[in-house]
């Protein structure tokens, strides 16, 4: 009973998160301006981290957690650097 409940929930959650990533990816491709793309890229990163957490629940292994943490970290650094770039046209001053 609880196994079917959980596997159904994990499946639905994965579908919803993939749809969310598709929406974000659409905005990355569509633009229209650079700041829209960066914002959507940040959302894409967070959605990917959530998808990995759900994968972790599905496989019952905590190893996915570290990958999700790394994605969140890299997403933060990337978005901060890109915002800096949009502000000044250079990343390191």
């Amino acid at each position, binding site marked *: 009973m609880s196994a079917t409940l959980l*596997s159904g929930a994990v499946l639905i959650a*994965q579908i*919803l998160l993939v749809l969310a990533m598709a929406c974000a990816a659409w905005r990355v491709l569509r633009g229209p301006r650079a*700041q829209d793309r960066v914002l959507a890229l940040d959302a894409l990163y967070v959605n990917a981290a959530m998808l990995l957490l759900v994968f972790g629940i599905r496989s019952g292994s905590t190893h996915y957690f570290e990958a999700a943490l790394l994605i969140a970290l890299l997403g933060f650094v990337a978005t*901060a650097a890109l915002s800096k770039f949009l502000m000044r046209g250079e990343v390191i001053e």
Partner: protein
Amino acid sequence: MNDLPLWAAIPVTLLLLFGSALALIGSIGLVNLRSFYARVHAPTLGTTLGIGSILLASMLYFSVLRTRFVLHELLMAVFIVLSTPVTLMLLTRAALYRDQREGSSEVPAVLPSDPPEKEVP
């Protein structure tokens, strides 16, 4: 994912569905809101309650499965809470700066006290 008691499976299920639905709504907002400054608010749904409830689901699931407290999801929660406002602030400021330089009518004009043109490379 088989030997989880029902009393734990139900909250994990609800939290997973709630979190992923919020993330999807946030991303839909990215698609259908009109302007950049309106879209800035949309992903916050996923990065606050969305990822929060998925982390909670994961914590509950692994704690019950391993019959000990698995708390390292807290680490990611702390990190997300600290990093999301920083990125959004940086990005919105950058967008405002670009729009002000182009003289867009959508944003407030540069105040006299704001740093003048000397910052332009």
